[in-house]
């Protein structure tokens, strides 16, 4: 269920993200210009934080199926490894978000 819910959230986030990135890149914005627009923006910070949260939920649940079905990996070691991966995603994701929007 969390997978479906996070998927729905991500569907929106990803669409917004893709359009935003295409807009930024087509406009030929440089790193400076992008950062000028993003730094200090509470709205964008919130949006991308939600994005990272949804990703942190969605990716490990998806990988769980892959582990069960294609790697024959079950049980607590699998779940623990996925939890670690979720933590990695959360850390790396928020680091990027803070770097760009704080």
């Amino acid at each position: 269920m969390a997978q479906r819910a996070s998927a729905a959230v991500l569907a929106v986030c990803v669409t917004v993200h893709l359009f935003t990135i295409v807009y930024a890149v087509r406009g030929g914005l440089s790193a400076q210009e992008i950062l000028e627009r993003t730094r200090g923006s509470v709205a964008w910070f919130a949006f991308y934080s939600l994005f990272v949260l949804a990703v942190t939920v969605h990716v490990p649940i998806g990988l769980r199926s892959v582990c069960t079905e294609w790697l024959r990996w079950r049980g607590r070691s699998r779940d623990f490894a996925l939890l670690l991966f979720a933590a990695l995603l959360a850390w790396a994701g928020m680091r990027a978000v803070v770097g760009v929007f704080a």
Partner: protein
Amino acid sequence: MKVLVKRTAGYQEFEVPREPSQTVLDVVTYIQRKLDPTLAYRFACRVGMCGSCAMTVNGVPRWTCRTHVDRVLEKETITVAPLRNLPVIRDLVVDMGEFFDKWARAKGQFRGEQTRRDDFAKVSPSSGNRRQADAGIECIGCAVCYSACDVVKWNPDYLGPAALNRAWTLINDVRETRNLERLRAVAGDAGCHACHTHVSCTERCPKGLSPTASIAGLKRAVAKALVKGEL
């Protein structure tokens, strides 16, 4: 034509004459009666009603009595093997025990509360629930869908399309008394959520049923129950 049969020991090749309107069941029967009496296989009605003759033909699970040789012949060769995803007893015969165990685990048995002293339950055939149930009740438990399913292959615990389809027909049965228990049975890791919508079951079902639709229904029912706090 050349017929490759997967037996317990391995593939064995037979040369079988072509006949008009010949089915794969005819072919297997010819082999057992005329060429090698030790070949083990199952069949019963041979007219497409019982599902006993289900085998893998050229990699695809089918009812052999309903599979015309003309339709499946590839370069004058047919390959016949036992149904996938089930333990082989001997040659083309598989052990259906696990298939029916999962049926039971998904709470495939109807349990009502009316007795012969009560009046008939009045269920309108055009009601939403009944239509959903009717779409799936023709299942005869032949295990073709179970054999076609990749998730069954990848996850030995997965209840499978037939069991889940059956559960869905009972979820929609307004006379049923154990539906909460049933939802719990199908909501776990090995239940409806393991279905990845390959739709192989629906593709292969000889009765034209759609376990994919039933399983989607179960997913919705589980989601609703979760939101309502019933699960």
